[in-house]
């Protein structure tokens, strides 16, 4: 097992397209780092550069204490699980599992021993003599996983390993992966576009957008203190509400004004002024039905335009002032229907504020 470091790694293609811009990451020994981002964000490119499948344009990559920047994939001793599983179709499950050991000319007895052990741990023993075509999607996925485990590599690389599985199997396998990480305590880099996988699996999560790292943080820190508008909008479901507007006054007693919404702000000290974007998670908005609480100065009137019931909760789309679609997640018990007039409230503590021109998070005055 080993630490992986990316030092100002840059990747650009001859046509001028930059797939990775100045990516620096320090992945601790035994950490599971999730690279997450929309498609085209460069996350797979970063993974492939760690594997050696893509050349680095500039910068360095270190695995353990070894500079592997110019080493071919064969010499890096990492294992990779592809989205397609990439099982060798002409080989049996046994030979697939043992492939990495066989090409390294390990003795047959040692290969058999390790393959048997890995197959046992993944429940593949009964399938060892089958060919990949005779396996189900979940079984193929486990073979791909087993092939990585058998090698006992310095690090595991996963490229969207769950995206070809159906929903039930995906969540089962996700849990299995989390257990595997606990058991092996191995360094893992995991690429996904699915924020649920990122949040549930990652020791830390690195959010990528347009080839650049946006934020690297533990999952909850990412959720609570997104570093910029992109991360704020990408992490969390449904996505964070954003309202453009201006800040009136500074420090304590300042207020937000925009799109017909005016809200008292927490103390931002001298950090914020002028044009800002206010962000609030749908889960933070509270709704009361009827006009009863009109006296509550912090709440404002809104119209319900759409209700999506999810069983345990419901997603309510509100319109107020110039805002056409403000999303709130409220308990399923609350009786709301399309056309209702309700009063909505955003607790000051739940407000995120971003600079309108840079998109960066504005932090509160330290108290």
């Amino acid at each position, binding site marked *: 097992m080993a630490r992986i470091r990316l030092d100002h790694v840059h990747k650009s293609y001859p046509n001028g397209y930059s797939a990775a811009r100045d990516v620096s990451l320090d992945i601790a020994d035994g950490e599971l780092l999730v690279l997450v981002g929309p498609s085209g964000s460069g996350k797979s490119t970063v993974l492939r550069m760690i*594997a*050696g*499948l893509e050349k680095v344009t500039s910068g360095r990559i270190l695995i353990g204490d070894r500079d592997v920047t110019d080493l*071919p*994939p*064969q010499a*890096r*001793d*990492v*294992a*990779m699980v*592809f989205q*397609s*599983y*990439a*099982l*060798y*179709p*002409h080989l049996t499950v046994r030979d697939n599992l043992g*492939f*990495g050991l066989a*090409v*390294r000319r390990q003795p047959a007895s040692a290969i058999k021993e390790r393959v048997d052990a890995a197959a046992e741990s993944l429940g593949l023993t009964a399938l060892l003599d089958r*060919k*990949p*075509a*005779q*396996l189900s*999607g979940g079984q*193929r996925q486990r073979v791909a996983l087993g*092939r990585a485990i058998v*090698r006992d590599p310095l690090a595991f*690389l996963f490229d969207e390993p769950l995206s*070809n599985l159906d929903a039930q199997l995906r969540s089962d396998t996700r849990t299995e992966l989390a257990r595997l990480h606990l058991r092996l305590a191995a360094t893992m880099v995991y690429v996904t576009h699915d924020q649920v996988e990122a949040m549930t699996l990652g020791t830390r999560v690195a959010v990528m957008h347009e080839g650049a790292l946006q934020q690297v943080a533990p999952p909850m820190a990412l959720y609570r203190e997104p570093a910029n508008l992109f991360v704020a909008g990408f992490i969390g479901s449904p996505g964070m509400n954003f309202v453009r507007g201006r800040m009136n006054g500074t420090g304590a007693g300042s207020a937000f004004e925009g799109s017909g919404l005016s809200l008292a702000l927490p103390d931002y000290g001298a950090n914020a002024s002028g044009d800002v974007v206010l962000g609030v998670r749908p889960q933070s908005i509270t709704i009361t039905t009827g006009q009863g609480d009109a006296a509550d100065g912090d709440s404002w009137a809104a119209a319900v335009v759409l209700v999506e019931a999810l069983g345990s909760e419901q997603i309510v789309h509100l319109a107020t002032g110039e805002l056409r679609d403000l999303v709130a997640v409220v308990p399923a018990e609350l009786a709301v229907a399309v056309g209702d007039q309700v009063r909505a409230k955003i607790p000051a503590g739940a407000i995120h504020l971003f600079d309108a021109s840079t998109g960066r998070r504005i932090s509160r005055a330290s108290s």
Partner: protein
Amino acid sequence: MSGRVWWRAALAALVLFAALPFVWAMIASLTPGAVLGGAPALWPSHPTLEHYRALFAVRSFWLPIRNSLVVAGTTTALCVTAGAFAAYALARLEMRGKRAILSLILAVTMFPQIAIVSPLYMLLRSLHLIDSYPGLILPYVTFAMPLAVWLLVGFFRQLPRDLEEQAMVDGASRWQVMKRVVLPLSAPGLATTAILTFIYCWNEFLFALSFTLGPERQTVPVAIALFRGQYQIPWGEILAGAIVATAPVALVVLAFQRRIVQGLTAGAVKG
């Protein structure tokens, strides 16, 4: 329902159209020489093997068959092995001018054979290769190789790239990737290429006629063509020879047909 009937009828007509000359040749090759010029029959009233007997006993047809096997076999082996390496490099390795190389390779096949028979003859004569196996194999390789490379490039490109990358990450060298993953998976492609190359060499006439001097090195098509004497054309033996020349190739194609069509990569990715 009626659509299916039409479909079958059309298929039957096509098969009949393609197979009729061969069937006719087969029937005629079994018909005694005396009645060969008469009204054609669907089945000879007195089938005979006399033409085949004559073919091997009198004309020692084994000799051209041996020559054809040697020339076509060697050419095929050379084309498939060298072609596979060239094609893999062109399909997968990063290098400049790949497109230009592929176009150049294809351009070689553009020369009409008849246009280069004379220069090739002079070349082979000065190399003392006239009436020798290499004298046929070398020109055949030049002409068959482009087709082989193009076919194989197509097959290699179809292979999921993930598999090769997986093998490399698993620690396999380029050579091991080729040997353990690419070649086994492109077996259908290699078989197809081999068969097409073999058929090309087996049927080739112009070079074989021009670059050989006598029966010692003549191939099957040349031998059959030279059966005709000054005063008579031994149709029975010519057709028997044609059957003997065609049957093995047809059998090989039929035998490999399944393997050629079969998608060996099933189950490799997704599914």
